[in-house]
Protein backbone atom coordinates (compact mmCIF):
# COMPACT_ATOMS: atom_id res chain seq x y z
CA UNK A 1 0.00 0.00 0.00
CA UNK A 2 1.50 3.31 -1.08
CA UNK A 3 1.69 5.93 1.63
CA UNK A 4 1.27 9.64 1.34
CA UNK A 5 1.22 12.40 3.88
CA UNK A 6 -1.83 14.07 2.41
CA UNK A 7 -4.22 12.68 -0.17
CA UNK A 8 -6.69 15.15 -1.65
CA UNK A 9 -9.82 13.75 -3.24
CA UNK A 10 -10.77 16.08 -6.07
CA UNK A 11 -8.63 18.29 -8.27
CA UNK A 12 -11.03 21.18 -8.75
CA UNK A 13 -10.52 24.63 -7.22
CA UNK A 14 -10.88 23.26 -3.70
CA UNK A 15 -8.47 20.37 -4.15
CA UNK A 16 -5.86 22.47 -5.91
CA UNK A 17 -5.93 25.26 -3.34
CA UNK A 18 -5.73 22.72 -0.52
CA UNK A 19 -2.71 21.14 -2.15
CA UNK A 20 -1.04 24.49 -2.52
CA UNK A 21 -1.82 25.36 1.11
CA UNK A 22 -0.31 22.08 2.27
CA UNK A 23 2.77 22.43 0.11
CA UNK A 24 3.34 25.95 1.40
CA UNK A 25 3.43 24.44 4.88
CA UNK A 26 6.24 22.21 3.69
CA UNK A 27 4.51 18.91 3.04
CA UNK A 28 6.09 17.00 0.15
CA UNK A 29 4.15 13.76 -0.11
CA UNK A 30 0.86 15.14 -1.42
CA UNK A 31 -1.32 13.41 -4.00
CA UNK A 32 -4.38 14.80 -5.74
CA UNK A 33 -6.79 12.19 -7.10
CA UNK A 34 -8.97 13.57 -9.88
CA UNK A 35 -11.58 11.58 -11.79
CA UNK A 36 -11.72 13.83 -14.86
CA UNK A 37 -9.16 13.91 -17.66
CA UNK A 38 -7.79 17.24 -16.45
CA UNK A 39 -7.61 19.35 -13.29
CA UNK A 40 -10.01 22.23 -12.78
CA UNK A 41 -13.18 20.49 -11.74
CA UNK A 42 -16.43 22.22 -12.54
CA UNK A 43 -14.56 25.40 -13.57
CA UNK A 44 -13.71 23.74 -16.85
CA UNK A 45 -17.29 24.01 -17.98
CA UNK A 46 -17.95 27.43 -16.42
CA UNK A 47 -16.88 29.44 -19.42
CA UNK A 48 -18.61 32.60 -18.18
CA UNK A 49 -16.81 35.26 -16.17
CA UNK A 50 -17.21 36.39 -12.60
CA UNK A 51 -14.40 34.38 -11.03
CA UNK A 52 -11.39 35.80 -9.23
CA UNK A 53 -12.55 39.28 -8.28
CA UNK A 54 -11.41 38.76 -4.71
CA UNK A 55 -8.48 36.45 -5.35
CA UNK A 56 -6.85 38.17 -8.30
CA UNK A 57 -8.71 41.51 -8.40
CA UNK A 58 -9.56 40.54 -11.97
CA UNK A 59 -12.69 39.12 -13.49
CA UNK A 60 -11.80 35.81 -15.03
CA UNK A 61 -13.71 33.03 -16.71
CA UNK A 62 -13.82 29.62 -15.02
CA UNK A 63 -11.13 28.03 -17.19
CA UNK A 64 -8.85 31.03 -16.68
CA UNK A 65 -9.26 30.85 -12.90
CA UNK A 66 -8.58 27.13 -12.95
CA UNK A 67 -5.50 27.63 -15.11
CA UNK A 68 -3.92 29.95 -12.53
CA UNK A 69 -4.07 27.15 -9.99
CA UNK A 70 -3.12 24.40 -12.38
CA UNK A 71 -0.03 26.37 -13.26
CA UNK A 72 0.80 26.95 -9.60
CA UNK A 73 0.36 23.26 -8.86
CA UNK A 74 2.62 22.37 -11.79
CA UNK A 75 5.21 24.90 -10.65
CA UNK A 76 5.15 23.43 -7.17
CA UNK A 77 5.39 19.97 -8.72
CA UNK A 78 2.41 18.72 -6.76
CA UNK A 79 1.71 15.13 -7.82
CA UNK A 80 -1.71 14.32 -9.19
CA UNK A 81 -3.42 11.45 -10.96
CA UNK A 82 -6.10 12.04 -13.58
CA UNK A 83 -8.89 9.73 -14.77
CA UNK A 84 -8.71 8.22 -11.31
CA UNK A 85 -11.88 7.65 -9.33
CA UNK A 86 -11.78 7.08 -5.59
CA UNK A 87 -14.26 4.32 -4.82
CA UNK A 88 -13.65 3.77 -1.14
CA UNK A 89 -12.17 5.40 1.92
CA UNK A 90 -12.35 4.35 5.55
CA UNK A 91 -11.75 6.00 8.88
CA UNK A 92 -8.23 4.59 8.92
CA UNK A 93 -7.55 6.85 5.97
CA UNK A 94 -7.08 3.96 3.59
CA UNK A 95 -8.16 4.82 0.09
CA UNK A 96 -9.11 2.64 -2.85
CA UNK A 97 -9.02 4.29 -6.26
CA UNK A 98 -9.22 2.97 -9.80
CA UNK A 99 -7.86 3.98 -13.19
CA UNK A 100 -7.13 2.31 -16.49
CA UNK A 101 -3.33 2.20 -16.32
CA UNK A 102 -2.78 1.14 -12.75
CA UNK A 103 -5.98 -0.78 -12.08
CA UNK A 104 -6.85 -0.75 -8.39
CA UNK A 105 -4.80 1.60 -6.24
CA UNK A 106 -4.64 1.07 -2.52
CA UNK A 107 -3.28 4.13 -0.79
CA UNK A 108 -2.74 5.00 2.86
CA UNK A 109 -2.76 8.65 3.89
CA UNK A 110 -1.78 10.40 7.10
CA UNK A 111 -4.41 12.99 6.31
CA UNK A 112 -7.21 13.16 3.77
CA UNK A 113 -8.74 16.33 2.41
CA UNK A 114 -12.23 15.85 1.04
CA UNK A 115 -12.70 18.15 -1.97
CA UNK A 116 -15.23 16.23 -4.08
CA UNK A 117 -17.51 19.11 -4.79
CA UNK A 118 -21.23 18.70 -5.26
CA UNK A 119 -23.81 17.29 -7.64
CA UNK A 120 -27.15 18.53 -8.90
CA UNK A 121 -30.52 17.52 -7.57
CA UNK A 122 -32.31 15.60 -10.36
CA UNK A 123 -35.92 15.78 -11.52
CA UNK A 124 -36.73 12.56 -9.73
CA UNK A 125 -35.78 13.97 -6.37
CA UNK A 126 -38.39 16.71 -6.62
CA UNK A 127 -40.86 14.29 -8.15
CA UNK A 128 -42.25 16.38 -11.00
CA UNK A 129 -45.02 14.23 -12.49
CA UNK A 130 -45.48 13.68 -16.18
CA UNK A 131 -43.54 12.14 -18.98
CA UNK A 132 -40.03 10.76 -18.73
CA UNK A 133 -39.20 11.77 -22.25
CA UNK A 134 -35.90 13.08 -23.58
CA UNK A 135 -35.14 16.78 -23.24
CA UNK A 136 -35.01 17.02 -19.46
CA UNK A 137 -31.57 17.90 -18.13
CA UNK A 138 -29.95 19.21 -15.04
CA UNK A 139 -28.55 22.64 -15.88
CA UNK A 140 -25.01 21.39 -15.31
CA UNK A 141 -25.39 18.49 -17.74
CA UNK A 142 -26.74 20.85 -20.35
CA UNK A 143 -23.85 23.18 -19.63
CA UNK A 144 -21.43 20.35 -20.27
CA UNK A 145 -23.04 19.42 -23.58
CA UNK A 146 -22.96 23.03 -24.75
CA UNK A 147 -19.57 24.10 -23.45
CA UNK A 148 -17.52 20.93 -23.71
CA UNK A 149 -19.15 18.93 -26.51
CA UNK A 150 -20.40 21.92 -28.48
CA UNK A 151 -23.94 20.60 -28.92
CA UNK A 152 -27.31 22.06 -28.00
CA UNK A 153 -29.68 20.00 -25.88
CA UNK A 154 -32.69 21.81 -27.31
CA UNK A 155 -34.20 24.83 -28.99
CA UNK A 156 -37.14 26.07 -26.91
CA UNK A 157 -36.21 26.04 -23.29
CA UNK A 158 -37.88 26.42 -19.93
CA UNK A 159 -35.63 26.54 -16.88
CA UNK A 160 -36.78 25.54 -13.42
CA UNK A 161 -34.82 27.26 -10.68
CA UNK A 162 -33.31 30.71 -10.64
CA UNK A 163 -30.09 29.75 -8.91
CA UNK A 164 -26.91 30.84 -10.63
CA UNK A 165 -26.58 27.77 -12.81
CA UNK A 166 -30.10 28.24 -14.13
CA UNK A 167 -29.50 31.91 -14.83
CA UNK A 168 -26.14 31.33 -16.48
CA UNK A 169 -27.65 28.65 -18.70
CA UNK A 170 -30.53 30.96 -19.65
CA UNK A 171 -28.00 33.31 -21.16
CA UNK A 172 -25.81 30.57 -22.57
CA UNK A 173 -28.64 28.84 -24.39
CA UNK A 174 -29.88 32.15 -25.77
CA UNK A 175 -26.47 33.08 -27.10
CA UNK A 176 -26.15 29.73 -28.83
CA UNK A 177 -29.44 30.10 -30.64
CA UNK A 178 -32.15 28.76 -28.37
CA UNK A 179 -35.25 30.56 -27.16
CA UNK A 180 -35.52 30.57 -23.40
CA UNK A 181 -39.21 31.05 -22.72
CA UNK A 182 -39.13 31.42 -18.97
CA UNK A 183 -37.17 30.84 -15.80
CA UNK A 184 -39.53 29.41 -13.19
CA UNK A 185 -38.69 29.88 -9.52
CA UNK A 186 -40.50 28.25 -6.59
CA UNK A 187 -39.60 30.91 -4.06
CA UNK A 188 -40.79 34.49 -4.15
CA UNK A 189 -37.18 35.55 -4.66
CA UNK A 190 -34.39 34.42 -6.92
CA UNK A 191 -31.72 32.07 -5.65
CA UNK A 192 -28.88 33.50 -7.68
CA UNK A 193 -26.68 36.55 -7.61
CA UNK A 194 -28.43 39.76 -8.54
CA UNK A 195 -25.87 40.51 -11.23
CA UNK A 196 -26.93 37.33 -12.97
CA UNK A 197 -30.58 38.37 -13.06
CA UNK A 198 -29.47 41.50 -14.89
CA UNK A 199 -27.03 40.05 -17.36
CA UNK A 200 -28.71 36.72 -17.96
CA UNK A 201 -32.42 37.48 -17.87
CA UNK A 202 -33.02 41.23 -18.16
CA UNK A 203 -30.49 41.64 -20.96
CA UNK A 204 -32.39 39.11 -23.06
CA UNK A 205 -35.92 39.83 -21.96
CA UNK A 206 -36.33 36.38 -20.45
CA UNK A 207 -39.28 36.36 -18.03
CA UNK A 208 -38.68 35.30 -14.42
CA UNK A 209 -41.73 33.65 -12.89
CA UNK A 210 -41.28 33.90 -9.14
CA UNK A 211 -43.42 31.81 -6.78
CA UNK A 212 -44.18 29.36 -9.54
CA UNK A 213 -43.43 25.73 -10.08
CA UNK A 214 -43.73 23.09 -12.77
CA UNK A 215 -46.64 20.76 -12.15
CA UNK A 216 -46.33 18.48 -15.13
CA UNK A 217 -44.19 17.63 -18.13
CA UNK A 218 -45.76 16.64 -21.42
CA UNK A 219 -43.97 14.83 -24.19
CA UNK A 220 -43.63 11.63 -26.14
CA UNK A 221 -40.12 11.21 -27.50
CA UNK A 222 -39.03 14.64 -26.41
CA UNK A 223 -40.55 17.26 -24.21
CA UNK A 224 -43.50 19.02 -25.85
CA UNK A 225 -44.33 21.43 -23.10
CA UNK A 226 -44.56 22.03 -19.38
CA UNK A 227 -47.39 23.17 -17.16
CA UNK A 228 -46.49 25.80 -14.60
CA UNK A 229 -48.61 27.11 -11.74
CA UNK A 230 -48.40 29.79 -9.10
CA UNK A 231 -47.65 28.54 -5.58
CA UNK A 232 -49.02 29.62 -2.21
CA UNK A 233 -47.12 30.44 0.99
CA UNK A 234 -46.62 26.73 1.56
CA UNK A 235 -45.17 26.46 -1.93
CA UNK A 236 -48.06 24.30 -3.05
CA UNK A 237 -49.51 24.84 -6.53
CA UNK A 238 -52.66 26.96 -6.61
CA UNK A 239 -55.39 25.31 -8.65
CA UNK A 240 -56.60 27.38 -11.53
CA UNK A 241 -53.36 29.25 -12.07
CA UNK A 242 -51.94 26.68 -14.48
CA UNK A 243 -50.25 27.86 -17.64
CA UNK A 244 -48.92 25.64 -20.41
CA UNK A 245 -45.64 26.61 -22.01
CA UNK A 246 -44.62 24.87 -25.22
CA UNK A 247 -40.98 23.88 -25.20
CA UNK A 248 -38.71 21.02 -26.19
CA UNK A 249 -36.27 21.32 -23.32
CA UNK A 250 -36.52 21.59 -19.57
CA UNK A 251 -33.41 22.53 -17.60
CA UNK A 252 -33.41 21.92 -13.88
CA UNK A 253 -31.44 24.10 -11.52
CA UNK A 254 -33.10 22.91 -8.34
CA UNK A 255 -30.32 22.58 -5.86
CA UNK A 256 -26.78 21.44 -5.36
CA UNK A 257 -25.97 18.61 -2.98
CA UNK A 258 -22.52 18.10 -1.52
CA UNK A 259 -21.14 14.84 -2.85
CA UNK A 260 -20.52 12.89 0.35
CA UNK A 261 -20.85 9.23 -0.52
CA UNK A 262 -17.18 8.71 0.22
CA UNK A 263 -17.41 10.70 3.44
CA UNK A 264 -20.14 8.32 4.58
CA UNK A 265 -17.86 5.39 4.00
CA UNK A 266 -15.32 6.87 6.38
CA UNK A 267 -17.96 7.43 9.05
CA UNK A 268 -17.62 11.20 8.70
CA UNK A 269 -20.50 12.91 10.48
CA UNK A 270 -22.57 14.97 8.08
CA UNK A 271 -24.78 17.93 8.81
CA UNK A 272 -28.44 17.27 8.06
CA UNK A 273 -28.78 20.84 6.88
CA UNK A 274 -25.83 21.31 4.55
CA UNK A 275 -25.35 17.66 3.57
CA UNK A 276 -21.65 18.24 4.11
CA UNK A 277 -19.35 17.21 6.97
CA UNK A 278 -19.51 18.96 10.32
CA UNK A 279 -16.14 20.58 10.85
CA UNK A 280 -14.29 22.59 13.42
CA UNK A 281 -12.36 25.82 12.98
CA UNK A 282 -9.51 23.87 11.39
CA UNK A 283 -11.89 22.29 8.88
CA UNK A 284 -11.31 18.89 10.41
CA UNK A 285 -14.28 16.54 10.44
CA UNK A 286 -15.18 14.28 13.35
CA UNK A 287 -12.61 11.82 12.04
CA UNK A 288 -9.12 12.75 13.06
CA UNK A 289 -6.99 13.66 10.09
CA UNK A 290 -9.87 13.98 7.63
CA UNK A 291 -10.50 17.55 6.52
CA UNK A 292 -13.07 19.02 4.15
CA UNK A 293 -13.28 22.13 2.02
CA UNK A 294 -15.11 23.62 -0.92
CA UNK A 295 -18.52 22.57 -2.18
CA UNK A 296 -18.32 19.15 -0.54
CA UNK A 297 -18.37 20.97 2.80
CA UNK A 298 -21.09 23.44 1.90
CA UNK A 299 -22.23 24.89 -1.40
CA UNK A 300 -20.44 28.15 -2.18
CA UNK A 301 -21.44 30.98 -4.51
CA UNK A 302 -17.99 32.35 -5.18
CA UNK A 303 -14.98 30.28 -6.04
CA UNK A 304 -12.82 32.89 -4.34
CA UNK A 305 -14.16 31.77 -0.97
CA UNK A 306 -13.63 28.14 -1.94
CA UNK A 307 -9.99 29.00 -2.53
CA UNK A 308 -9.57 30.75 0.82
CA UNK A 309 -11.29 27.96 2.69
CA UNK A 310 -9.32 25.28 0.92
CA UNK A 311 -5.90 26.85 1.42
CA UNK A 312 -6.81 26.85 5.08
CA UNK A 313 -7.77 23.19 5.01
CA UNK A 314 -4.50 22.38 3.29
CA UNK A 315 -2.48 24.26 5.87
CA UNK A 316 -4.27 22.56 8.73
CA UNK A 317 -3.90 19.12 7.20
CA UNK A 318 -0.20 19.88 6.92
CA UNK A 319 -0.02 20.90 10.56
CA UNK A 320 -1.84 17.74 11.50
CA UNK A 321 0.71 15.67 9.61
CA UNK A 322 3.48 17.53 11.41
CA UNK A 323 2.00 16.47 14.72
CA UNK A 324 -0.54 19.08 15.72
CA UNK A 325 -3.85 17.90 17.06
CA UNK A 326 -7.20 19.47 16.31
CA UNK A 327 -9.23 16.96 18.23
CA UNK A 328 -10.13 18.87 21.33
CA UNK A 329 -13.81 19.60 21.29
CA UNK A 330 -14.58 23.22 20.65
CA UNK A 331 -17.42 25.58 21.38
CA UNK A 332 -20.50 24.66 19.42
CA UNK A 333 -21.92 27.24 17.05
CA UNK A 334 -25.64 27.41 16.58
CA UNK A 335 -27.39 29.02 13.69
CA UNK A 336 -30.78 30.27 14.87
CA UNK A 337 -33.55 32.59 13.87
CA UNK A 338 -32.95 32.86 10.20
CA UNK A 339 -29.44 31.43 10.08
CA UNK A 340 -29.70 27.94 8.66
CA UNK A 341 -26.24 26.64 9.48
CA UNK A 342 -22.70 27.74 10.15
CA UNK A 343 -19.40 26.44 8.89
CA UNK A 344 -17.53 25.66 11.06
CA UNK A 345 -19.82 24.06 13.58
CA UNK A 346 -17.25 23.95 16.35
CA UNK A 347 -14.50 26.39 17.31
CA UNK A 348 -11.64 25.62 19.61
CA UNK A 349 -10.15 29.06 20.37
CA UNK A 350 -6.72 27.52 20.96
CA UNK A 351 -6.48 26.78 17.25
CA UNK A 352 -7.23 30.28 16.08
CA UNK A 353 -4.30 32.34 14.83
CA UNK A 354 -5.81 35.75 14.44
CA UNK A 355 -9.41 35.09 13.48
CA UNK A 356 -11.78 32.52 12.12
CA UNK A 357 -14.17 33.09 9.24
CA UNK A 358 -17.62 31.78 10.03
CA UNK A 359 -19.66 31.26 6.87
CA UNK A 360 -23.40 30.83 6.86
CA UNK A 361 -26.59 31.21 4.87
CA UNK A 362 -29.95 32.60 5.88
CA UNK A 363 -33.20 30.81 5.21
CA UNK A 364 -35.21 33.72 3.89
CA UNK A 365 -34.84 37.22 2.49
CA UNK A 366 -34.20 39.84 5.18
CA UNK A 367 -34.04 43.55 4.43
CA UNK A 368 -32.57 46.18 6.74
CA UNK A 369 -31.66 43.74 9.51
CA UNK A 370 -28.67 42.66 11.57
CA UNK A 371 -26.44 39.68 11.87
CA UNK A 372 -25.75 39.16 15.55
CA UNK A 373 -23.21 36.90 17.17
CA UNK A 374 -23.67 35.96 20.80
CA UNK A 375 -21.05 34.42 23.03
CA UNK A 376 -23.41 32.68 25.46
CA UNK A 377 -25.77 35.49 26.48
CA UNK A 378 -23.61 38.39 25.42
CA UNK A 379 -23.95 39.93 22.03
CA UNK A 380 -20.51 40.57 20.67
CA UNK A 381 -21.29 41.42 17.04
CA UNK A 382 -24.21 43.34 15.64
CA UNK A 383 -23.69 44.00 11.95
CA UNK A 384 -26.14 45.96 9.85
CA UNK A 385 -27.06 44.28 6.60
CA UNK A 386 -29.11 45.98 3.94
CA UNK A 387 -30.05 42.68 2.46
CA UNK A 388 -29.62 39.04 3.39
CA UNK A 389 -30.76 36.33 0.99
CA UNK A 390 -30.44 32.52 0.88
CA UNK A 391 -28.70 32.76 -2.48
CA UNK A 392 -25.71 34.59 -1.07
CA UNK A 393 -23.34 33.14 1.48
CA UNK A 394 -22.42 35.49 4.33
CA UNK A 395 -19.34 35.68 6.53
CA UNK A 396 -18.57 36.99 9.98
CA UNK A 397 -15.08 37.20 11.35
CA UNK A 398 -14.56 36.11 14.94
CA UNK A 399 -11.23 37.36 16.25
CA UNK A 400 -8.86 35.92 18.78
CA UNK A 401 -9.60 38.90 20.99
CA UNK A 402 -13.30 38.06 21.09
CA UNK A 403 -12.60 34.55 22.27
CA UNK A 404 -10.16 35.83 24.87
CA UNK A 405 -12.97 37.99 26.23
CA UNK A 406 -15.14 34.94 26.91
CA UNK A 407 -12.88 32.16 28.19
CA UNK A 408 -15.80 30.22 29.71
CA UNK A 409 -17.97 30.44 26.65
CA UNK A 410 -20.14 27.36 26.14
CA UNK A 411 -22.06 28.27 23.05
CA UNK A 412 -21.92 30.77 20.21
CA UNK A 413 -25.12 31.77 18.46
CA UNK A 414 -25.41 33.43 15.08
CA UNK A 415 -28.79 34.88 14.28
CA UNK A 416 -30.70 37.46 12.30
CA UNK A 417 -32.18 40.27 14.34
CA UNK A 418 -34.60 42.97 13.30
CA UNK A 419 -32.86 45.61 15.34
Amino acid at each position, binding site marked *: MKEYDIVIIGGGPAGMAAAIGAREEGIEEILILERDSCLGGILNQCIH*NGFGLHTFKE*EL*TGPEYAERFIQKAEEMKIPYKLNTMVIDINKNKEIVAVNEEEGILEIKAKAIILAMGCRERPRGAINIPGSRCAGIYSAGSAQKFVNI*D*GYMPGKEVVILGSGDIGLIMARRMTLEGAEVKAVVELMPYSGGLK*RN*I*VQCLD*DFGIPLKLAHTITSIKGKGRVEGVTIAKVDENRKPIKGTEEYIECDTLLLSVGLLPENELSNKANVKLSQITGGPEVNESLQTNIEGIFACGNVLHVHDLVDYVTLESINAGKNAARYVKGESFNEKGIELKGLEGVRYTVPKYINPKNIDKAVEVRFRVGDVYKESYISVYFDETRELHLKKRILTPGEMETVKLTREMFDKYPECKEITVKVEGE
Partner: protein
Amino acid sequence: MREFRNLICIGCPIGCDMEVTLEEGKVSEVKGNTCVRGKNYAEKECTNPTRIVTSSVRVQGGEIDSVSVKTQSDIPKNKIMKCIEELKGITLNAPVKAGEIIIRNVADTGVSIISTKTVAKTNEDM
Protein backbone atom coordinates in the same frame (compact mmCIF):
# COMPACT_ATOMS: atom_id res chain seq x y z
CA MET B 1 -35.95 66.54 -18.09
CA ARG B 2 -35.01 64.64 -14.99
CA GLU B 3 -35.16 60.84 -14.99
CA PHE B 4 -34.59 58.34 -12.21
CA ARG B 5 -33.45 54.82 -12.85
CA ASN B 6 -32.97 51.91 -10.49
CA LEU B 7 -30.13 49.60 -11.31
CA ILE B 8 -28.39 46.62 -9.86
CA CYS B 9 -24.63 46.87 -10.27
CA ILE B 10 -23.06 43.89 -11.98
CA GLY B 11 -19.51 45.02 -11.31
CA CYS B 12 -19.03 42.39 -8.67
CA PRO B 13 -21.20 39.80 -6.95
CA ILE B 14 -22.39 42.17 -4.19
CA GLY B 15 -24.86 43.69 -6.64
CA CYS B 16 -25.49 47.08 -4.99
CA ASP B 17 -28.91 48.57 -5.57
CA MET B 18 -28.30 51.99 -7.07
CA GLU B 19 -30.44 54.95 -7.98
CA VAL B 20 -29.27 57.03 -10.89
CA THR B 21 -30.47 60.53 -11.66
CA LEU B 22 -30.32 61.49 -15.29
CA GLU B 23 -30.73 64.99 -16.67
CA GLU B 24 -31.07 65.43 -20.39
CA GLY B 25 -29.76 61.89 -20.83
CA LYS B 26 -26.60 62.59 -18.81
CA VAL B 27 -25.94 61.08 -15.38
CA SER B 28 -26.03 63.77 -12.71
CA GLU B 29 -26.07 61.64 -9.53
CA VAL B 30 -25.46 58.03 -8.46
CA LYS B 31 -26.64 56.78 -5.07
CA GLY B 32 -26.26 53.35 -3.44
CA ASN B 33 -22.91 52.26 -4.84
CA THR B 34 -20.26 51.08 -2.39
CA CYS B 35 -17.24 51.59 -4.62
CA VAL B 36 -16.15 53.74 -7.52
CA ARG B 37 -16.58 50.84 -9.96
CA GLY B 38 -20.25 50.88 -9.14
CA LYS B 39 -20.50 54.56 -9.95
CA ASN B 40 -18.71 54.01 -13.24
CA TYR B 41 -20.93 51.09 -14.06
CA ALA B 42 -24.07 53.11 -13.30
CA GLU B 43 -22.98 55.92 -15.54
CA LYS B 44 -22.05 53.58 -18.31
CA GLU B 45 -25.14 51.45 -18.02
CA CYS B 46 -27.40 54.45 -18.40
CA THR B 47 -25.60 55.99 -21.31
CA ASN B 48 -23.65 53.28 -23.09
CA PRO B 49 -24.31 49.86 -21.56
CA THR B 50 -21.60 47.29 -22.25
CA ARG B 51 -21.01 43.63 -21.49
CA ILE B 52 -18.26 41.02 -21.65
CA VAL B 53 -19.38 38.21 -23.93
CA THR B 54 -18.28 34.64 -23.33
CA SER B 55 -18.86 31.77 -25.71
CA SER B 56 -17.11 28.77 -27.20
CA VAL B 57 -15.90 27.65 -30.62
CA ARG B 58 -15.10 24.29 -32.12
CA VAL B 59 -11.61 22.91 -32.18
CA GLN B 60 -10.29 20.35 -34.60
CA GLY B 61 -7.49 17.97 -33.78
CA GLY B 62 -7.35 18.92 -30.14
CA GLU B 63 -7.58 17.02 -26.91
CA ILE B 64 -11.00 18.55 -26.47
CA ASP B 65 -13.60 19.57 -29.06
CA SER B 66 -14.43 23.04 -27.80
CA VAL B 67 -12.50 26.01 -26.54
CA SER B 68 -14.00 28.76 -24.40
CA VAL B 69 -13.56 32.32 -25.63
CA LYS B 70 -14.39 35.85 -24.48
CA THR B 71 -14.30 39.43 -25.62
CA GLN B 72 -11.03 40.87 -24.38
CA SER B 73 -12.97 43.72 -22.78
CA ASP B 74 -16.59 44.79 -22.71
CA ILE B 75 -18.47 45.66 -25.86
CA PRO B 76 -21.69 47.63 -26.41
CA LYS B 77 -24.67 45.63 -25.24
CA ASN B 78 -26.43 46.06 -28.57
CA LYS B 79 -23.55 44.33 -30.36
CA ILE B 80 -23.78 41.08 -28.37
CA MET B 81 -25.74 39.13 -30.97
CA LYS B 82 -23.65 40.42 -33.86
CA CYS B 83 -20.57 39.28 -31.97
CA ILE B 84 -22.09 35.83 -31.59
CA GLU B 85 -22.93 35.80 -35.31
CA GLU B 86 -19.30 36.32 -36.16
CA LEU B 87 -18.33 33.34 -34.00
CA LYS B 88 -20.64 31.11 -35.99
CA GLY B 89 -18.97 28.56 -38.15
CA ILE B 90 -15.50 29.15 -36.76
CA THR B 91 -13.43 26.02 -36.25
CA LEU B 92 -9.95 26.40 -34.88
CA ASN B 93 -7.12 23.99 -35.43
CA ALA B 94 -5.33 22.75 -32.35
CA PRO B 95 -3.15 23.79 -30.64
CA VAL B 96 -4.90 26.84 -29.25
CA LYS B 97 -3.24 28.98 -26.64
CA ALA B 98 -5.16 30.76 -23.87
CA GLY B 99 -5.14 34.46 -24.66
CA GLU B 100 -4.73 33.85 -28.39
CA ILE B 101 -6.73 36.23 -30.57
CA ILE B 102 -9.53 34.45 -32.42
CA ILE B 103 -11.20 37.44 -34.05
CA ARG B 104 -9.85 40.96 -34.21
CA ASN B 105 -12.26 43.85 -33.85
CA VAL B 106 -15.35 41.70 -33.50
CA ALA B 107 -18.58 43.31 -34.72
CA ASP B 108 -16.68 46.50 -35.37
CA THR B 109 -16.25 47.20 -31.68
CA GLY B 110 -12.50 47.52 -31.67
CA VAL B 111 -12.41 44.65 -29.17
CA SER B 112 -10.92 41.23 -29.94
CA ILE B 113 -12.19 37.78 -29.09
CA ILE B 114 -9.57 35.73 -27.29
CA SER B 115 -9.35 32.13 -26.18
CA THR B 116 -9.65 31.53 -22.44
CA LYS B 117 -8.26 28.03 -22.50
CA THR B 118 -5.28 26.22 -23.88
CA VAL B 119 -6.06 23.19 -26.03
CA ALA B 120 -3.20 20.87 -26.85
CA LYS B 121 -2.99 18.95 -30.06
CA THR B 122 -4.12 15.39 -29.71
CA ASN B 123 -1.58 12.62 -30.27
CA GLU B 124 -3.82 10.67 -32.62
CA ASP B 125 -2.99 10.65 -36.29
CA MET B 126 -5.70 12.54 -38.09
